[in-house]
């Protein structure tokens, strides 16, 4: 019996693909499985073709599989657009309604088995029940989910639509369950203890929002942009509930500067955006560096350059996140290693920004942000340090003077006796503008060292496995890489996975001149770098900042198609034979 099952649902406007996918995920969750759900759609705002891409499993899953076991086409509208995104193999099943027409060439060419699922007939027979629910019902039944779970999910999802819609949906699911084609016999997943406690269902965007709140963020200013808007929409009412505020700004220049104002006022602040918005924020981030004002930017990356491919994922804002500020501007760059980890990494970013009085960029992406996972409750680390606040009534308050750790005390407006001016010009310790080479050198060094020398604890680099071959990756590609490594290990081959959660400062945690990342690669002779970028941004980052072993290969491919576990194994090539 397979331990994970991958299902794609496709259809055009109004077919209800996304809702069916959601029912499937939720029902499987109630049955005790883990899973993820990713959505893909055309350029239309409404009524466009869309696909729900699911993977369910007996253990947590962090990425889509190499291919789908099942494709259910509610109709064939514009299916070519998804042909690339839905790899099928000979054992895959393609379920469609013969009355919707023959399987189109783009799909037929993949050589999967075609199975008739008479959706229209079943739906009509069930008193015009919705076809998407028939499909969901059939799939759930094939998987072995109790009807009770399915119906509970439908009620939870559609309850607010009221009686008729709900009962029709339930009828549809039942009809589907009754009509499961025989060919679907072995789709069942292993039975699980149902409804375990502490299991969470959330998207990466929601997770990042939660991390922000856990980290203490109580002010957000932002401007809508795909695929970051949902993070903001999730935060808006919750911030109000917690006594904080969200301002919809007039543009990204305003959002970042509003955040700086609020943070200067003592309130931890965050904004979220995507590439084009980040490009507008770099001047503000530079001010955060020079003025030492904590702030967090979550960049939910999408295909670039320029407006690019707004709805699809890519890891190509790494360059701008690391190096996009003018001048020598040391700051923090972090990346979550999974959908659920968006919560921890964002929370940690808030903590670091506040502690180190510097801006932090969290590099999420569309694949993390808009994927919904069912997973274990993510860790909530109670970080002890916070922003170092100046005590009142000082004789000569020096905002930019610090002790050994390089971190100065920051006065909160309202505090008597510590008034000062936050300054973006180079300045002396008090904050008075200065162009002296001495002041410049000292402030530059302090701003760099306070980041480099901080103890980031065990979270900075994810290291899994050992051996002399390592796969080094970051962000959303971690899922596929970890799965590829697991498969290698299952074949008895040791593979180390190294993924920095903290990308900048790159040289943190130096011991005897070796960076934390270099130490994680201790004993490694061969490194495969995996990233979703055409110009090898991550590979160049590694080369620039770290000494790598001599044998380096690079699997760098742009979006929008996700990098699959087998693609990673293939890139290992002959290294995998050793």
């Amino acid at each position, binding site marked *: 019996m397979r331990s994970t099952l991958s299902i794609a649902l496709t259809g055009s406007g109004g077919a209800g693909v996304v809702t069916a996918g959601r029912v499937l995920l939720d029902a499987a969750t109630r049955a005790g499985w883990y899973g993820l759900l990713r959505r893909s759609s055309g350029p239309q705002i409404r009524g466009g073709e869309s696909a729900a891409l699911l993977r369910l499993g007996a253990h947590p899953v962090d990425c889509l599989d190499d291919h789908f076991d099942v494709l259910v086409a509610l109709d064939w509208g514009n299916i070519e657009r998804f042909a690339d995104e839905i790899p099928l193999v000979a054992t895959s099943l393609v379920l469609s309604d013969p009355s919707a027409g023959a399987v189109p060439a783009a799909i037929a060419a993949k050589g999967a088995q075609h199975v008739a699922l008479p959706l229209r007939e079943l739906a009509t027979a069930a008193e015009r029940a919705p076809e998407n629910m028939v499909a969901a019902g059939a799939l759930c039944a094939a998987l072995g989910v109790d009807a009770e779970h399915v119906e509970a999910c439908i009620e939870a999802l559609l309850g607010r639509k009221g009686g008729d819609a709900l009962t029709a949906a339930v009828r549809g699911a039942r009809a589907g369950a009754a009509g499961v084609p025989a060919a679907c016999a072995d789709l069942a997943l292993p039975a699980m203890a149902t409804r375990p406690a502490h299991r969470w269902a959330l998207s990466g965007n929601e997770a990042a929002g939660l991390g922000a*709140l856990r980290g203490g963020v109580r002010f957000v200013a932002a401007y809508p942009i795909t695929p970051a808007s949902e993070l903001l929409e999730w935060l808006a009412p919750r911030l109000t509930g917690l006594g904080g505020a969200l301002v919809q700004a007039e*543009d990204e220049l305003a959002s970042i500067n509003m955040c700086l104002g609020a943070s200067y006022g*003592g309130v931890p602040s965050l904004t979220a955006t995507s590439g084009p918005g980040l490009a507008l924020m770099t001047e503000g981030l530079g001010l955060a560096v020079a003025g030492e004002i904590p702030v967090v930017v979550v960049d939910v990356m999408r295909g670039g350059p320029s407006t690019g491919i707004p709805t699809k994922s890519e890891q190509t804002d790494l360059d701008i996140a690391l190096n996009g500020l003018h001048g020598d501007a040391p700051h923090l760059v972090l990346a979550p290693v999974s959908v659920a980890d968006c919560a921890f990494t964002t929370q940690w970013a808030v903590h670091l920004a506040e502690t180190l009085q510097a801006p932090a960029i969290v590099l999420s992406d569309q694949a993390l942000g808009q994927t919904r996972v069912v997973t274990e409750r993510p860790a909530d680390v109670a970080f002890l340090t916070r922003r170092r606040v100046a005590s009142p009534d000082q004789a000569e308050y020096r905002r930019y003077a610090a002790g050994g750790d390089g971190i100065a005390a920051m006065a909160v407006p309202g505090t008597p006796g510590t008034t000062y001016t936050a300054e973006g010009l180079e300045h002396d310790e008090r904050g008075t503008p200065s162009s002296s080479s001495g002041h410049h050198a000292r402030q530059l060094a302090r701003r760099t060292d306070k980041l480099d020398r901080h103890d980031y604890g065990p979270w900075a680099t994810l290291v899994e496995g050992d051996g002399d071959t390592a796969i080094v990756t970051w962000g959303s590609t971690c899922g596929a890489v970890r799965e590829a490594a697991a498969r290698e290990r299952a074949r008895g081959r040791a593979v180390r996975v190294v993924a920095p959660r903290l990308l900048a400062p790159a040289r943190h945690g130096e011991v005897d001149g070796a960076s934390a990342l270099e130490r994680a690669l201790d004993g490694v002779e061969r490194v495969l770098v995996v990233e979703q970028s055409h110009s090898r941004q991550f590979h160049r980052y590694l080369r620039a900042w770290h000494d790598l072993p001599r044998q380096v290969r690079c699997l760098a491919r742009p979006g929008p198609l996700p990098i699959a576990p087998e693609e990673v194994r293939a890139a290992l090539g002959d290294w995998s034979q050793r």
Partner: protein
Amino acid sequence: MSTVETAITLAPKQYKSDVKPVWCPGCGHFAVLNAMTKAFSALGLPPEQVAVVSGIGCSSRVPAYTSVYGFHGLHGRALAVGTGLKVARPDLTVVVAGGDGDGFSIGGNHFLHACRRNLDMTYVVMDNEVYGMTKGQASPTTAADWSASKLTPGGPGMRPFQPASIAVAAGATFVARCFSGQPNEIARVLVEAVRHPGFSFVQALSPCPTFCPEQKEWKHVVRPFDAEPTDDPAEASRRLQADDGMSTGIVLAARRPSWAPSSGGASASATTIEAIEAEIEA
């Protein structure tokens, strides 16, 4: 300003820092700084309860010259910083200050939206119709035929930006104009502006003798508006359109609710992190 100082009332000069201005002697910005300190004193504000936020420019150097909290930000972004600060810290008195280039050229968008948002803060623009700090280029308020800048040798060639009219059209609820030659009047207007519950915009004509020596004439030209402040934006706009830009005083003082994060009554169910986490439970 009584001879006997009480514990609560500070003299204007106590709102000044010990940083000496780099402004050219004769610059109008001195008077605006002085007026600001007089206003703070007259309002009896504890220095730590006030924040002065600015952008970049000669005028924008003002925060460091005061003894209150200051923020010397980026060129054009002062109002955004002020907005964030005021929303996060409604208890503070937030005064945003800067120049005509900072506020109306690169900062024009934030000006529009700050007027509309009507947060309870004050915006003072020291308008010298020039970019002083970068050596005398034309600003949005420069006359069309001012040909002293090498960058626009024939003059900017377009109608000057009309800050007060635009503020009214954009929805500002308090609009005033004053002149650095009358610092006590500026102080009066600033006191009203700070007291105004909403966004108050003060255009302070503030000559730049270094790049615009012709502005010495301003003192002969300015005169008070010939009517009391109105609370009707349409009337304010009419007056401003009939004016040559040299009348001083408060033009508009209207009431309109200030924006607040929860305005419109958001239905926030969860009020603790735990409650929010419970929603996520699968």
